[in-house]
């Protein structure tokens, strides 16, 4: 009988199926110095993380095109391990469509990343982004926090054929708000990235919405990849739910490789 994911984690063994991390970064946040790409890939190998989708820290803070290029460069350095989000911001409306077109000429871009700065996600300024995603079947990851979806759920409702992923779901004790939104909207998914592991958060979120609506990300470069993986591997969930979150959902949403048996 094969070991459970919990037993694997306690022994520091890589996950027996490929994990996909759908929320990670390249670049450095101020005061948080992450390791080199090589160190990240070594940590991915220890855990059994086959690939991660990264967005650029520089892009988040306004240097959009340069940041997206930085993400693409990381993908070139580590093909099939790093994939990229095209980061766009409604603070730079003239750049939205042009930047999306530019990025998605490169097949390493797998999704769109947006951040919560100034313009709510259901503002018409973002419609062009959601329409682009819907047309090309691209997942959209948004930074949200503390139950404040700032219109991301309303955007998901208006664009039902695009898949929307709310980042940091459950942060600051807000899991019921996220769970309610994900239950209401079939195309809204919840990302577990969060520096804290508040008691029962994994079990509550998955119990409320089902593993099919939950995806895993690490926020790597901001904090520990292994910590974020341990939250799921050791959670009081059955292994089928963990596999759905760590493998099946990202494969389905992002089109990674082939689903394992």
């Amino acid at each position, binding site marked *: 009988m094969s070991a459970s994911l919990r037993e694997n984690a306690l022994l520091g063994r890589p996950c027996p199926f490929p994990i996909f991390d759908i929320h990670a970064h390249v670049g450095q946040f101020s005061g948080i110095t992450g*390791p080199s790409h090589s160190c990240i890939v070594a940590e991915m190998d*220890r855990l059994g993380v086959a690939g991660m989708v990264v967005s650029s820290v520089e892009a988040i803070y306004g240097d959009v095109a340069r940041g997206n290029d930085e993400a693409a460069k990381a993908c070139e350095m580590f093909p099939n391990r790093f994939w990229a989000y095209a980061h766009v911001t409604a603070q730079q409306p003239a750049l939205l469509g042009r930047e999306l077109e530019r990025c998605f000429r490169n097949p390493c871009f797998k999704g769109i990343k947006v951040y919560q700065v100034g313009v709510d996600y259901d503002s018409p300024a973002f419609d062009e982004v959601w329409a682009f995603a819907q047309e090309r079947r691209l997942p959209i990851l948004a930074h949200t926090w503390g139950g404040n979806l700032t219109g991301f759920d309303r955007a998901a409702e208006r664009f039902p054929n695009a898949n929307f992923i709310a980042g940091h779901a459950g942060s600051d004790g807000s899991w019921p708000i996220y769970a309610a939104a994900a239950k209401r909207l079939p195309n809204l998914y919840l990302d577990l990235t969060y520096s804290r592991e508040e*008691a029962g958060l994994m079990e509550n979120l998955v119990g409320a919405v089902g593993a099919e609506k939950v995806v895993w990300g690490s926020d790597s470069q901001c904090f*520990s990849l292994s910590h974020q993986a*341990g*939250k799921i591997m*050791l959670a009081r969930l059955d292994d089928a739910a963990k596999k759905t979150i760590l493998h099946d959902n990202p494969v389905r949403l992002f089109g990674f490789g082939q689903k394992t048996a």
Partner: protein
Amino acid sequence: MSVSLAQPLQFFDAYCGIGICQQPQPDWIIEPEKLLAAMDHYGIGKALVYPNYIRAIAPPERGTEILRECCRISNRFEPLAPIYPHPYPDLPSVESQLERAKAMGARAAWCNAVSAPFTLLTYGEIISRCAKLQLPILVEEAGDTIAQLDRICESFPSLRVIYAGGSFRSDPLLFPLLRKHENIHVCLGPAYIPPWGPMRFVESFGPKRLLFGSGMPRCTPGGVVGHVAYAGLSLDERQLIAGGNLERLLKEAWL
């Protein structure tokens, strides 16, 4: 580097609350029996426990009793004895509190900043005694704890400190403190989870100053267990972080 282990690490949790408290949340595990079951699930053998009861301004004497009662339930619980500064002579002296701690088998003290801010002025007498006894003290981040620790450890360089409650953004403040004061140790977790695992810390300070800390009952320990189990460190280094360093600190106490 492969990090797979033949046997699980022996975790000894340095940062865990136990017993009743004023406003427990539905998912908090506070009952000793349930806490033992949770420790089993997460591979934690033992825990240094403080009484949840006196994280608020509850009566400290009752908190100490609750701690004693909880620790009687299993020898997997090691008491972290609360030691309070008292401004009035008719309240328990530091000496009498240390005697009480000794009677319950405590080998570490909790300087809980709830009833008195953690400063050299307020905790000076306690710190002086703990330094002489090599009794490690656990202090939690309370906004200016790192600055206070800098002043305190300048006056009492032999004081053994376990600093808990840092975050993944603590290193710019924490690393200069650790360079300056070699007897300060750090709880890894629940939110002190800097990128690249504990490897950067170990590169700078070696493996003997990091201690596994779950943050229960407020937090679930799975992430921190993974953070240590999957670290790109040798088995010996990971075992020191998981529990060996705490074992050593407690063994060296003279109480």
